[in-house]
């Protein structure tokens, strides 16, 4: 990335006084004009609200009346109210479905494609598995809301294979709603992980796979010995992107269950929305928002570090 950090050193002496040198110096200042518009938009619509979130989190405020300073009380409330703390627990459960399972499954699928379907079938698999990734999450939510409904496809299949007894309105069930939402996440994210990991595999020296196969290595040996260790970086990227998306989940949950039944599927994004826009508790909503942002950073940093380390 940083191969051109320094200018070639050869004619340095003559450049010290040359116009070239002055041009470079002027560029370093004028360049700020180039960066300013992006910085202004970013500062106004991202950094400023971020600071305001932190500020609001120390106040009690209903959005209209005066703001009352309450110190850290909003943060304490999050830890005391089971629904709010529960939303963070739910977010971590969703990480399993939105991140761990698709990454693991994606690894398997990518290695299978690489091994048995290098041609047209592989290309078709790549395109089709990727489809759910490009549609709006809201649409994915609506589609699966119907699939998981009482008369929907999932129950139809279950009845078809003689499991009529277990059919239910999956997203209305206290125990099954969260895994139900999780399944939607798997459907959406799997293609992304598969294709990303597949590009990783194609970068691995083909000789490694060839010699393993000449030695008679089966799929599993190849998978554990070559694919997983050498895709460390891609796995890290995949985990980072999907974990952020999982912790920030909103769209799918909002359209399928809106956090229900009860608070079974309420995630921080949903609770922030409800607290701020239906209960008018801006301070508390902001405290949860700040916690969510810190949480993402805390979870992401170790993943980043692990995947960058060279074994």
């Amino acid at each position, binding site marked *: 990335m940083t191969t051109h950090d320094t200018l070639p050193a050869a004619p340095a002496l003559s450049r010290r006084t040359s116009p070239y040198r002055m041009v470079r110096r002027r560029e370093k200042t004028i360049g700020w004009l180039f960066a300013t518009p992006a910085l202004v938009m*970013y500062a106004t619509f991202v950094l400023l609200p971020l600071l305001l979130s932190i500020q609001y989190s120390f106040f009690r405020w209903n959005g209209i009346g005066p703001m009352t300073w309450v110190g850290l009380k909003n943060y304490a409330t999050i830890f005391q109210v089971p629904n709010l703390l529960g939303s963070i627990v739910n977010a971590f459960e969703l990480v399993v479905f939105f991140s761990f399972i698709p990454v693991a499954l994606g690894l398997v699928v990518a290695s299978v494609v690489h091994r048995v379907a290098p041609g047209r079938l592989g290309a078709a698999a790549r395109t089709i598995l990727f489809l759910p990734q490009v549609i709006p*999450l809201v649409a994915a939510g609506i589609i699966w809301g119907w699939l998981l409904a009482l008369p*929907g496809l999932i129950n139809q299949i279950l009845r078809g294979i003689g499991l009529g007894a277990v059919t239910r309105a999956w997203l209305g069930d206290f125990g099954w709603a969260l895994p139900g939402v999780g399944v939607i996440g798997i459907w959406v994210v799997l293609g992304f992980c598969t294709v990303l990991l597949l*590009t990783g595999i194609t970068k691995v020296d083909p000789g490694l796979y060839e010699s393993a196969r000449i030695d008679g290595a089966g799929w599993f040996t190849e998978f554990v010995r070559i694919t997983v260790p050498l895709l460390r970086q891609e796995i890290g990227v995949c985990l980072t992107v999907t974990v952020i998306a999982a912790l920030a989940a909103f769209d799918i949950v909002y359209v399928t269950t809106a956090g229900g039944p009860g608070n079974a599927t309420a995630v921080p994004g949903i609770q922030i929305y409800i607290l701020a826009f239906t209960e008018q508790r801006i301070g508390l909503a902001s405290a949860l*928002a700040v916690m969510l942002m810190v949480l993402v*950073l805390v979870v992401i940093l170790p993943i980043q570090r692990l995947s960058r380390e060279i074994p």
Partner: protein
Amino acid sequence: MKVGRSELVTGRVLLVGLMVLTILPFLSIFTTALYPSGTVPSGIGWPAHPQWGNFVQAFKVANMTALLASSTFIVIAVVPVSLVISTMAAFAIGLLRISGARLLLFLFVFGLTLPFGGIIVPLYYLERSMGIYNTRLAIVLPLIGLYMPFAVFWMRAHFVNMPVDISEAARLDGASTWGLFRRIHLPLARAPISSLGILMAVWTWNQFLLALVLVEDPSQRTMAGALGAFQGHYATDVPLLCAGTILILVPTLVIFVLFQRQIIAALLQGAVKG
């Protein structure tokens, strides 16, 4: 090479199975959309009398013409501006290496981890005080800001790998900083700019939270935001809801099929560079 026959078969069956599982949900809403409006159909199955008219009805009740116009307007307002200002900033950071470039880059990269939900509440109050709440600008302006981390990061990766000789030659020829950007480097950056543009267009089209919170009138929203409102009204009329969902999916799917290679490549490179 030396892949056994049985393994070949198992592997391929697994892949085809997964592909069917991925497609099945789309098929299910498609057949459901053909049942008479207002009835409760079953998961999948061909109706006795397919109601193709459902699509026409959904097109009307969802006010699809207005939605398409609104979403298109938002995309056209967001994407070019974002492309221009992020490319310029990335040029300053990655190629001119302005003083403080590292710090600036860090500031932008930090934004990559930010969930939209983290800033949505203050954004709402901020936009009320700016007087842009409930207009399309309420979606357009914050989206431009929110795309900056990714866009700057993405374009910087391009500029940082540009050979120095190119800029050097232009400078020695007396090109101004703007000339260096406009004449030399902008044309060279066409490929990363176009993939970034496609990506941001799809993300904008699919943006839900900002539309939901910042714009009350569905006809001023993005496609995804409008779909949310449509679902609110027609949640009980499953065939109509499915027909509406399909209509809203069609543009995205068409774009995906047309630009498949660029979209996939862009998403992946974006992730890897992150």
